[in-house]
């Protein structure tokens, strides 16, 4: 037999062996093609071919707003929910615990001095932070695209609606800015010390009401009063010692419906109708909706990949002290984030609140299209 014949024989033998792999080969082709198509589609969307992507903006200015036109607004009359001042199953923990796994003072109400830092923050801080935002002098990022939505009016006032989770790190950070913003239109008679979950940074934060930090639940209501707006809070809870978790929104809706409170029942219905949820914190500020987190402000320095966050190692007292006398990037960014919320509310209430006359707020309204 010639060398050529031997070679051909060998190759035929090899092909016979590989024929058993044909099915796998075809499967690989199908998977590959599907993979390629889905990959290209994903990349196209990620590269902003979809106008609905509202990734965080690292250059400080929020992108233009989009509009949800297909959903009707609400105009209802209903009492709001006043939550309990304490929870027997989720008591205040007074013992000192180590950073990263601490619950020190969780569910403890802010004392009057601490509360005053939020309620009585100087307008000049909002103005300075707003100017820093507008002139891109903030190191930390703030601002995401907002969606124009119909108003959710309760008892004749537009509403701020918050859907978050006590376990969520972004919610933990955002509540500081939210509280500052809301304080421009009314005041809190109570706020509570809290944390994001151990698996999500263990950040010191504010809770709107005592939280069910040991169980899966939904905490509704807060202690906020305003003549301009309503504040409707839906706070999902899960064991704080775990990681981030959010109950499915249909479960949350069932729990809310069981309260029989029309404002809250319609608020979750409204959220589900909008189809703009991109994560927590999900907020609606009058006529503007922020579909997910809109700031990355976890301390004065920006940690690099995998490093722990400076805010994790701060106490509530330290955060409040920085907000009382802002002189660093962390505090200014919180005020700047609050400015964006303030501007959204001002744009929704025809600028009738005094804070709306601050030059920086007016400019933000113009530059961001509120």
């Amino acid at each position, binding site marked *: 037999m010639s060398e050529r014949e031997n070679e*051909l024989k*060998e190759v035929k033998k090899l092909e016979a062996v590989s024929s058993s792999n044909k099915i796998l080969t075809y499967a690989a082709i199908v998977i*590959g*093609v599907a993979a*390629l198509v889905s990959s290209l589609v994903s990349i196209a969307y990620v590269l902003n071919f979809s106008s609905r992507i509202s990734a965080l903006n690292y250059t400080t200015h929020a992108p233009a707003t989009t509009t949800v036109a297909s959903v009707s607004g609400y105009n209802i009359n209903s009492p709001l929910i006043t939550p309990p001042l304490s929870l027997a199953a989720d008591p205040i923990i007074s013992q000192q615990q180590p950073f990263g796994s601490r619950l020190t003072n969780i569910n403890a109400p802010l004392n009057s001095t601490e509360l005053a830092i939020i309620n009585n923050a100087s307008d000049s801080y909002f103005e300075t932070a707003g100017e820093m935002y507008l002139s891109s002098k903030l190191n930390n990022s703030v601002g995401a695209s907002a969606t124009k939505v119909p108003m959710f009016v309760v008892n004749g006032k537009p509403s701020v609606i918050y859907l978050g989770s006590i376990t969520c*790190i972004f919610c933990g950070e955002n509540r500081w800015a939210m509280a500052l913003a809301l304080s421009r239109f009314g005041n809190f008679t109570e706020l509570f010390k809290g944390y994001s979950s151990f698996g999500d940074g263990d950040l010191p934060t504010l809770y709107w009401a005592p939280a069910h930090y040991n169980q899966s639940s939904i905490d509704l209501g807060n202690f906020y009063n305003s003549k301009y707006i309503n504040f409707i809070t839906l706070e999902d809870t899960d064991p704080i010692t775990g990681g981030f978790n959010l109950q499915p929104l249909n479960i949350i809706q069932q729990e809310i419906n069981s309260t029989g409170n029309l404002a809250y029942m319609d608020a979750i219905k409204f959220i589900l109708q909008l189809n703009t949820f991109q994560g927590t914190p999900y907020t609606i500020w009058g006529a503007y909706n922020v579909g997910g987190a809109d700031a990355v402000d976890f301390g004065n320095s920006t940690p690099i*990949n995998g490093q722990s966050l400076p805010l994790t190692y701060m106490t509530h007292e330290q955060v409040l002290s920085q907000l009382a006398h802002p002189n660093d990037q962390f505090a200014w960014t919180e005020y700047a984030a609050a400015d964006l919320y303030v501007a959204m509310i001002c744009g929704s209430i025809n600028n009738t609140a005094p804070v709306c006359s601050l030059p920086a707020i007016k400019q933000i309204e113009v530059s961001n299209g509120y």
Partner: protein
Amino acid sequence: MAISKTYLAKSIFLSPFYAALTVVFAVGYYLLFIYLMGLSGNILFVKLPWYLIYALVVTSAVLLTIAVYSIKNSIMPYVGASTGAWSAVSASVGSLFASCGCTAPLLAPLLYDIGLNTIAVSSFMSAVSSYQSYIFAALILLNLFFIYYSISSASRKCVINRGKVLVPIKTK
């Protein structure tokens, strides 16, 4: 005579060209991860162990290199194209999932655009957050399977002559 899988793998990855190509692909995939996680804001607190991200990057890069080798040498090029495409999708899907935390500005709009509603999107995000590590492990295992399959298939199609890997003569 067919060559062993190990021999073929060695001949690919000990070649300076393919070794360099693997490094380039790995760096590319890693940068894709960083970029997407940065866009979503979740880069600061990736809950996944970083070794899982590195493992996905490396296995995707190795798979893509084998795909390039297969296509360049006309060894089952259709399999090469398929596994190469899979390599790209495992890296991009992995990075989308890695960037999903309590907020997912990249993933959520994709889900709405394929027709899901708020309840489905929020449930999907919750599930991804809860099972992120398992999803990553599954992607890595699939990559390893495709690496094995590609090398195994290619090794049966190759012959060795004077220490060099040769592609057999086509019979049809």
